[in-house]
């Protein structure tokens, strides 16, 4: 049932003595959407590039779609679709010419291809743009065309590096719908993202990476349950310290001060909320714990540049 599409053992990449990916273990199951999360420089893109056979690992074993990578990268790529971070569409070609040219790299041509191009243009909502130049497309249209291009060879596995970065909310919704329909067709997706709500919505399982290591793997719900109390209350305002010392400390399971804001974590939030309601000078927001809390707990709140 759940055959592995990707198996990585001890996968390592060094750049000038620094271990950018440090012996990671990874398994991606067939038909799932697997997310790679991590701050900038965590090693996500390098990991992804190794899966594609683009970056050559310095150590470890890697199998993608049953082929050893990088040795067997060529047959593996026949079944692979890639949506890179940069669209890298051919600016000299029209929309449909982009698809046709990309198909030629897979040795595809003829009537079957033309039919496939029509289907993909419909899938990407670009039927009316078939003859348009690339620079006439919006960011969302380019992203959809890049997604369509990745599907030209009917791939079993689609790898997406930050598929919705820089898109407006409408354009992101469309991409999400399309990615769901790919999952419904039984394809496996691997994606990196900086958007926690995107990961929470789309990913069946995800790995949180930092400093070249995988910190934890699981479904969004599992990760939240494993690392964070179910409720989070964010409090700020005058008298915060006094309230915390008198009541907050005792009522919260755990709390954390970030700048002007206090994060209180609780299994039962009612007593905290009641206590805060009696403090009109304090503003607070009570919400369920989410993936962002897990992410920040595991990778820290320091800026990465």
């Amino acid at each position: 049932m759940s055959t592995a599409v990707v198996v990585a053992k001890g996968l390592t990449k060094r750049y000038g003595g620094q271990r950018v990916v440090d012996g990671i273990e990874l398994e991606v199951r067939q038909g799932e959407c697997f997310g790679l999360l991590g701050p900038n420089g965590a090693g996500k893109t390098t990991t992804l590039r190794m899966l594609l056979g683009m970056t050559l690992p310095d150590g470890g074993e890697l199998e993608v779609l049953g082929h050893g990578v990088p040795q067997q990268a060529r047959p593996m790529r026949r079944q692979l679709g890639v949506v890179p971070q940069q669209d890298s569409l051919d600016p000299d070609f029209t929309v449909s010419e982009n698809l046709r040219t990309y198909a030629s790299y897979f040795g595809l041509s003829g009537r079957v291809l033309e039919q496939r191009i029509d289907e993909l243009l419909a899938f990407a909502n670009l039927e009316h743009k078939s003859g348009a130049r690339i620079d006439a497309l919006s960011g969302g249209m380019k992203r959809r065309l890049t997604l369509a291009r990745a599907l030209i060879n009917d791939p079993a596995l689609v790898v997406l590096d930050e598929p919705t970065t820089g898109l407006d909310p409408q354009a992101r919704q469309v991409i999400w719908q399309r990615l769901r329909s790919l999952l419904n067709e039984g394809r496996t997706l691997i994606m990196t993202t900086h958007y926690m709500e995107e990961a929470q919505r789309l990913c069946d399982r995800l790995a949180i990476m930092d400093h070249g290591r995988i910190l934890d793997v699981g479904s969004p719900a599992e990760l939240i349950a494993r690392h964070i109390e179910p409720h989070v209350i964010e409090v700020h305002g005058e008298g915060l310290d006094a309230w915390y010392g008198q009541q907050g400390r005792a009522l919260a399971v755990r709390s954390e001060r970030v700048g002007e804001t206090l994060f209180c974590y609780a299994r039962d939030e009612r007593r905290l909320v009641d206590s805060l309601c009696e403090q009109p000078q304090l503003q607070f927001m009570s919400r369920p714990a989410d993936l962002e809390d897990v992410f920040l707990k595991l990778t820290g709140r320091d800026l990465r540049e």
Partner: protein
Amino acid sequence: MDGLRQLAMAPLQLLQDLFALRWYPVWRRNVRVWRKLAGPALIGNIGEPLLYLFALGYGLGQLVGEVGGLDYITFLASGFICASAMNTASFEGTYSAFTRMTVQETWNSMLYTPLSVNDILFGEVFWGATKSLLSATMIIIVASLMGAVHGWAALWALPVALLTGACFTAMALVVTAVSRSYDFFLYYFTLLLTPMLLFSGVFFPLDGMPGSLQQASAMLPLTHAIAVVRPLVTGQPLGTLADVSLHIAVLLGYGLAALSIASVLIGRYLHR
């Protein structure tokens, strides 16, 4: 050490990839792009050599008279065929290829498909060669209209122009591999290609030059291209089969050596 071993293995892998013909769609892509912009490109291809042949051929020709038993314009036109093959290929292999390697990420997206670095490089080399063939053809047509071409044997200059184009595209790809910006290409053009253009016998025969310069000139691939093309176009005797084979072998040697280096260096860059 690792690099040397890779370099030693490169020619064998290249030969294998050459005959696998996976490079064809890469070549085809460049042809498709070129067809979109063919108008201005063709005008450049015809216009520039026409101007040079007119200005230098007639202008200088009046002063110079005959060179090595040839009208100056005939002498010049035969050299120009090779020089323009060199120029066309060098521009394609540097500025255009660099754009596809970096700015447009064309090569990156090709590597997400079953294509390999060598497939891409062969596609580029044959495309550079194709463009060189086009310019050489244009010049032969223009030159023959000016009466500077003697007989149908000149058509044999075309395959030599193709080879010259392939050789110079491969060399340009090495420069592209070590370049991190467009500015770097100026070194290549100023320090290598311009001297090559001046001291390979395009504008004047080398017999009158000092011996050391003649020896240096004999190392340049353009000299060898001209040594074959000039007799074919002007009707002068071609030399022995051994002579011609040597000239061709030099072009092939430069091309294969450059392509091997480019394969290792560009492979490292794209698979970094």
